[in-house]
């Protein structure tokens, strides 16, 4: 079994940024494992612009953003294997990988989980009805169009107002497809406000809130869907059914960190993020296994994925050099109005960057970090919505004793 200092699982934005930062930290014995035939991850199919505004101060397309990192990886000669799927990860940080040449195994000092996230599928949403062709997740439709030059649709209904769904509404419209409407089960849109403007409003595509799909019709190909209004408990209201004919239903109803490998290895997951429970070093419940990017918690912007992975790499590099990472015994719990936080554990001895999402829509609010009754961190927000990730630094000097922290909206 070959030994490696660092094995990075996933060659998307998180994995690439982690690899480069490890390299800059002096770690040379690195291997990136990517299951697709190219590096770049989901950015390869995200041809719209708006990436890199934070990091590069310009509005790049996904492939351009990824290429900046890939060029650096190639410049420094950081080893990577594409077309290589990790089949197994163990608690002892042993990795089994399969590719066209066969099976190989590695023993890593540090494993970086950078597998990204997956889309909620029809099965996961539990939509009743027949099972014709023509029901795609937004990302699948995006791959067909932007990578494989295949047009999957003519008459489209979109379920869910996630960003990828709205971006696909625009993309399909530009290519001459008719997008009838977007239906969202929640009473508020789930994607970013700017996408509602530039992807829906600009093309006169209506968005119906508090509506969902309650029937799928068609034999070999989708012929139509039933749409119902939902009540406050998100239950369909009988009598509100309407039929829409369409040949394609696109699902954009949420992203879930892809942690199958992590779970099999025994990494503890957070039920709120559905990613690993990590400390301020981005270390999971298994020593030497680190996680960052969308596999840890779903981000809104790739710029933050890159930043988080670089922060991870600095910690992982210290671990590989044999330095002891400060023990993290203080737990952080999401309180009123907060959906989740990352990290979930801190030492209290070092400033840390707190990431969170709120669970509702708020105006002129404050995000408070409390230890007992004492407020030890705060951020004022003009508005806070679930679609946007919120980040700020919490100072160690305010943290005293062994009591856990709670984050809430006020």
């Amino acid at each position, binding site marked *: 079994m070959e030994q490696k200092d660092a094995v990075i699982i996933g060659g998307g934005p998180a994995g690439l940024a982690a690899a480069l930062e490890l390299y800059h930290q002096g770690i040379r014995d690195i291997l990136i494992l990517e299951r697709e035939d190219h590096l770049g991850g989901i950015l390869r199919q995200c041809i719209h*612009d708006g990436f890199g505004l934070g990091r590069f101060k310009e509005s790049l397309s996904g492939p*351009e953003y990824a290429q900046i990192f890939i060029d650096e990886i190639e410049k420094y000669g950081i080893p990577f294997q594409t077309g290589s799927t990790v089949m197994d990860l163990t608690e002892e940080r042993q990795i089994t990988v399969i590719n066209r040449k066969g099976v190989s195994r590695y023993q890593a000092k540090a494993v970086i989980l950078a597998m990204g996230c997956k889309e909620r599928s029809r099965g996961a949403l539990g939509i009743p009805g027949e099972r014709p062709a023509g029901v795609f997740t937004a990302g699948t439709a995006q791959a067909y169009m932007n990578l494989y030059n295949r047009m999957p649709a003519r008459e489209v209904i979109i379920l869910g107002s996630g960003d990828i769904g709205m971006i696909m509404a625009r*993309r399909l419209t530009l*290519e001459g497809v008719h997008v009838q409407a977007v239906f969202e089960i929640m009473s508020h849109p789930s994607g*970013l406000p700017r996408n509602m403007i530039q992807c829906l409003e600009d093309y006169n595509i209506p968005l119906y809130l508090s509506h969902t799909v309650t029937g799928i019709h068609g034999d070999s190909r989708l012929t139509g869907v039933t749409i119902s209004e939902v009540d406050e408990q998100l239950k369909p209201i009988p009598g509100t059914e309407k039929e829409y004919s369409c040949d394609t239903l696109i699902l954009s109803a949420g992203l879930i960190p892809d942690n199958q490998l992590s779970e099999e290895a025994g990494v503890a997951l957070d039920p709120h993020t559905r990613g690993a429970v990590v400390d301020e070093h981005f270390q999971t419940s298994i020593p030497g296994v680190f996680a960052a990017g969308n596999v840890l918690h779903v981000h809104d912007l790739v710029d933050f994925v890159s930043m988080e992975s670089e922060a991870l790499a600095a910690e992982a590099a210290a671990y590989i050099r044999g330095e002891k990472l400060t023990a993290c015994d203080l737990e952080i719990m999401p309180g009123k109005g907060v959906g989740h936080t990352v990290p979930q554990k801190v030492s209290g001895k070092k400033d840390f960057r707190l990431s969170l999402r709120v669970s509702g829509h708020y105006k002129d609010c404050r995000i408070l970090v409390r230890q007992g009754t004492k407020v030890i961190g705060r951020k004022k927000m003009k508005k806070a919505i679930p679609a946007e990730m919120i980040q700020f630094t919490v100072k160690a000097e305010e943290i005293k004793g062994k009591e856990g922290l709670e984050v809430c909206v006020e």
Partner: protein
Amino acid sequence: MKKTCICIICPNGCEIETEVKEDGTLSLTGNTCDKGADYVRQELTAPVRTISTSVHVKGGVLPLASVRLTRPVPKEMIFPVMEQIRKISLTAPVQSGTVILRKVCGLDSDVVATRTVRAVNESQSL
């Protein structure tokens, strides 16, 4: 006249309250940067957008190269611009960053490739 605009320049998506007074002057609140003010002025008079799409590539390892506009164009020109881009067919290799159509539809915006597509017979490192 009062209107609320959501700025699309960056993901902050600032809600900007605008008011055009009777004398034609514009007052703004809610923008967190100058770009937001510029966006609103443009949006209220002559809205512009950038678009991204892809073009066919012959003999490449991928069938498509993604492209985008270098500058935003008037909103009503989006579909005429798409029409022009659709006529383009490239032959691999295609280098990301290459301008493939200058001043599309006579506008002050170029179509630029955003993906490198190697030719099938080129040695592949990726």
